[in-house]
């Protein structure tokens, strides 16, 4: 294979992608690939848990992808991408040594750095929704190990072969974090839970009063997950969700990602559930 020439770095600015080189490519599931990337020149900017980059497949297009590695973690920045269209298919196929474009980081964060000590943090993720939470969970594991508060990870997937970050889930469990996994459809040999991800809530012994909950996944899952957490006693305003919309500019200029009063790329993707996302989820004219 011929070595790919590095695209010329553009002038600094939020609308100009910076070339990054793919240094590792890992298949997480049949349709999900994690790309580890490094800037072709210089160092990557810092980011916060839950933020996203606009990732360009040169000649094809650009999509919003949350970072799936932890901020400040050594090594390249990771993006886990699900193959759902032409751009993501091209990104998923990007070989090691190829180049992608990056704009960002953009958007709001999960805010786990500001969580009060002693508070339980519940992470509920569905499908690829675990990717934007992965970095946060890694730091929540460290937080728990230092005695600052417990973490509970509840992950749902379509089927056992669609469970993402299996090694991470096991490592988090070994580190003492409560990890629950459910699948919608079982398979031969699967001895875990079959059911919706909210079915994992009764088995998670977190203290709902004061708890912080972070949800990411399909919007329908977040709607039902948010309600179930509130029913369990979690304050709706301490439930945070990550919204997915048609992000294009990433800086709140173009309006493609508008959702009610929000420009999701600027005001999100992470927003509070109670008094905001719960009402937006119920709007029918969008």
């Amino acid at each position, binding site marked *: 294979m011929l070595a790919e020439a590095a695209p010329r770095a553009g002038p600094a600015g939020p609308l100009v992608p910076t070339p990054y080189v793919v240094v590792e490519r890992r298949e997480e599931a049949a349709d999900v690939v994690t790309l580890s990337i490094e800037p072709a020149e210089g160092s990557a900017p810092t980011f916060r848990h839950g933020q996203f980059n606009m990732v360009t497949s040169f000649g094809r297009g650009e999509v919003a992808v949350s970072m799936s590695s932890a901020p400040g973690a050594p090594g390249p920045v990771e993006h886990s991408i699900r193959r759902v269209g032409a751009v993501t298919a091209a990104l998923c196929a990007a070989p090691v040594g190829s180049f992608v474009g990056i704009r960002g980081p953009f958007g709001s964060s999960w805010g786990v750095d500001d969580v009060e000590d002693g508070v339980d943090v519940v992470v509920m993720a569905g499908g690829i929704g675990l990717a934007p939470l992965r970095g946060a969970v890694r730091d929540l594991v460290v937080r728990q190990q230092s005695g600052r508060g417990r973490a509970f990870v509840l992950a749902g997937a379509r089927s056992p072969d669609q469970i993402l970050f299996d090694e991470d889930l096991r490592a988090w469990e070994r580190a003492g974090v409560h990890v629950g996994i459910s699948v919608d459809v079982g398979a031969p040999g699967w001895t875990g839970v079959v059911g919706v991800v909210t079915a994992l809530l009764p088995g998670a012994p977190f203290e709902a009063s004061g708890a912080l909950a972070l949800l990411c996944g*399909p919007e329908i*899952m977040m709607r039902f997950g948010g309600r179930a957490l509130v029913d369990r006693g979690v304050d709706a305003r301490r439930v945070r969700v990550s919204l997915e919309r048609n992000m294009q500019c990433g800086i709140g200029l173009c309006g493609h990602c508008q959702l009610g009063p929000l420009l999701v790329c600027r005001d999100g993707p992470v927003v509070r559930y109670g008094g905001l996302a719960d009402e937006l989820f119920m709007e029918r004219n969008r």
Partner: protein
Amino acid sequence: MNEAARSLLSGHAFLAGFPPEAVELVAEGAQVVTFRPGVLLFREGSPADIAYLVTGGKVAIEVHAPNRGPIVVETMGAGDVVGLSWAAPPFRYQFDARAVDEVEAVAVGTAPLRLALAENPILGFLFLDRLAAVILGRLQATRIRLLDVYGTSDAG
């Protein structure tokens, strides 16, 4: 009266908030049972004469398909009731139930329970009210799964 069964029943989620006489009614003749992994609690088509109030372990609700073997429809755990088919005709289990791991449950005879609830409409209403909540929860969970929310996306 089986004290071990009564103790477990008094802390079971299905009976949470029930008056003591309701717990006593269920405990009458109830037994604590355990199942090794892989053992069937009941089989599809057999009379639904026992309801299991699970207190530990995981139970798979299965259906057997030709050339595919057992297909797990849902799993139940501590706090769940396995075997709801006693609540309505034809009083036969509609699925298989199999222990996934070591399962502990309180086995409740449903024929005497139905008779007792028929004789005491207030308790009968309490039970049917709670059963309706359980059935509604399972119906809603099933509907969500039918949406296959993890399977589709409009993203690029």
